[in-house]
């Protein structure tokens, strides 16, 4: 691992000047927009603990969620996020049940609200939801009695992704103040980008949104990012280059002419990465389209790429979120 510059925000790792445990006054985790910067740091600090214990050897079990039921209700396909939430829940001792839209009554015409009421009636203690429609997770959260974690809703939010990205950046870069982060690709349709722009801007980074004009959301500045439509300008001086997945259905001429033209103009190649800072970190939320938004040699770069570390931090962040959101129900002192 390269040298980690120690910035003034290193104290983040220790939780700031106050030594007491910070409260997290939210019932659900639905959007980064709901969180104060210190609440984000609190979750990162909690996750840091789990990141260390996850590396601590073969036995990673902690049974604080023993007897609790965690339902992962995924109305949209997912492999890594679902797996990550499942592993996180199991490491905490929860009984984890996965519900896939493909095998559920959703396909039989049951409404989202009815499905939510059903999950609630089964006395889940925490529900993790992914849905293809923006706002769908908040809609369900309103109707159930237990905490809800948003695992991605439409183009809107994917808060645990932003938190795991922030944790990865903090571990590799030491902090956020003054850090230039370029978020590149299909920003328009990306919940990952929306969550990350809000999260990183709140933590003090300078965020850039780099996208073809057809894939740039209007007024992206309001989310704390400066728009760049030319990749090379957006990469200039960047400390972190965060690539986004280009969805297959956007590549057919509707938003960009072709994958190869996209690769030519916006693909992260070694030549292009050289425009960023020499120690710039490369990130990608996965799954990658190798040869489209990112060249394999960049994705697999042993020092520069943090892509597998992101996956690792994903488990830690989700453990932290599951732990924190169930503290009230578990009667943890000061939380119940």
């Amino acid at each position: 691992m390269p040298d980690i510059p120690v910035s003034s925000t290193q104290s983040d790792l220790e939780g700031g000047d106050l030594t007491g445990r910070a409260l997290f006054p939210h019932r659900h985790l639905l959007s980064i927009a709901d969180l104060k910067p210190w609440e984000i740091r609190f979750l990162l600090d909690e996750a840091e603990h789990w990141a260390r214990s996850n590396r601590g050897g073969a036995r990673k079990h902690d049974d604080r969620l023993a007897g609790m039921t965690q339902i992962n209700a995924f109305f949209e396909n997912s492999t890594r996020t679902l797996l990550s939430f499942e592993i996180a829940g199991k490491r905490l001792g929860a009984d984890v049940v996965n519900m896939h839209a493909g095998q559920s009554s959703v396909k039989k015409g049951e409404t989202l609200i009815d499905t939510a009421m059903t999950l609630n009636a089964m006395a889940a203690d925490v529900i993790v939801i992914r849905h293809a429609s923006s706002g769908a997770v908040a809609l369900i959260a309103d109707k159930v009695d237990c905490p809800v974690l948003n695992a991605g809703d439409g183009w809107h939010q994917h808060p645990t992704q932003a938190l795991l990205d922030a944790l990865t950046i903090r571990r590799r870069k030491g902090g956020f103040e003054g850090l230039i982060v370029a978020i590149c690709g299909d920003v328009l349709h990306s919940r990952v980008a929306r969550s990350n722009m809000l999260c990183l801007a709140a933590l003090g980074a300078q965020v850039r949104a780099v996208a073809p004009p057809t894939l740039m959301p209007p007024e992206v500045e309001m989310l704390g990012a400066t728009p760049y439509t030319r990749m090379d300008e957006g990469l200039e001086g960047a400390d972190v280059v965060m690539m986004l997945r280009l969805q297959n259905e956007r590549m057919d001429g509707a938003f960009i002419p072709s994958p190869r033209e996209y690769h030519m103009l916006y693909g992260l190649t070694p030549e292009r990465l050289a425009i960023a800072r020499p120690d710039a970190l490369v990130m990608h939320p996965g799954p990658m389209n190798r040869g489209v938004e990112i060249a394999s040699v960049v994705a697999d770069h042993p020092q520069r790429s943090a892509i597998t570390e992101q996956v690792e931090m994903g488990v830690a962040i989700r453990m932290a979120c599951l732990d924190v959101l169930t503290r009230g129900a578990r009667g943890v002192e000061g939380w119940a």
Partner: protein
Amino acid sequence: MTKLAIINGKLADPAGNDLATGVILIEDDRILATGDITVPQDAETIDAAGLVVAPGLVDLGVFATDKPAFHFGGITRAALMPDQSSPLDDAGLIRQATRAGKPDFWVHPIAAATRGLKGAELAEIGMMQAAGAKAVGTGRQWIADSGVMMRVLSYASGLGLTVITHAEDSGLAGKAVATSGETATRLGLPHAPACAEAMAIARDIMLARVTGGAIHFRLVTTRAGFDLIRAARADGLRITCGISPAYLFLSDNAVTDFRTFARLSPPLRSEDDRKAAIEAVADGTVDVITSSHDPRGPEDKRLPFADAAPGMAGAETLLALSLNLVRDGHVTLNRLMTLLSANPARILGVNGGSFAAGAAADLIFIDPDAPWIVDSGKMAAQAGNTPFDRMPVQGRVRRIMKGGNFL
């Protein structure tokens, strides 16, 4: 022959400039005379002291025949949009729709311009007119094919019918559910630029120029749209436009928190466009205020925002919200009645919106200051999907007369 004299009321005559105290004399279902007249010996008198007497509202463009809501709101006639479960593209369906509200409520169906509202082949507009259709409409969508739209305008003008069109370029609007801007970006909603409206209006104005047809743009909601309409009217084209209170009092930030009751078509606009809409009402560019009443239950609204059906239940709040325009000094009460009653009646060619001798005795008695709170849980409408839930408003209709009879 029964004669009724309404006395002591303040008359909001759309043809007048100010409220005036006077008498309305009614015989059977018609107004005999209005103003400073002597009450005949044989007339029964109705005391309207403390109330404003106005023509029954004529609602140009509703999606359901929802009598309890219309009666609550003082609406005595409504033009029914062709977007029904079976599109109103056939004389039989039109005849059936005209009978749905009688005797105490009159429905004036809008004939579908094209078969099945598909925007391709002309529907039997003439036969539907004979069956009672009062206008021709494109429904919730515009007609994308300019050739078809030109023939619709041309054909309808031959029959003396106005074409009521939806002004959103479908190529731009696509699957959008919000106007491009900060709110749509924050919420991650499919969005389209507001100019989708002006593009549609610009094309249809060109076609109106060529065909000489009359167009009513049912909902115009953007500054650019109003500018085009002002210019076209200055050129003498037969162009009118309407708006609903939602676009006058809400902007797209009402969608924050994914409130599906604020999912409308066209979508709510920016604050700048909202202000432009108020100006357009004040300067006379807007001809009609409609409720665009579209009651939608939980099965259509308790869904993720983009999956929810557009539309709001507006009939009950139409008058009370519109009275805000009078309180804020944008229009007089008489002018408001022109927008809510006389103009829509004129565009449809129906007997309403007037106190003149021979006019239909459709009257409402308004207590203009009566306060109440909009409550989506307690509405008279088939559904309570209002984005104005919990808003305090003023103005209640105390009595309604339809065709000379009190309801």
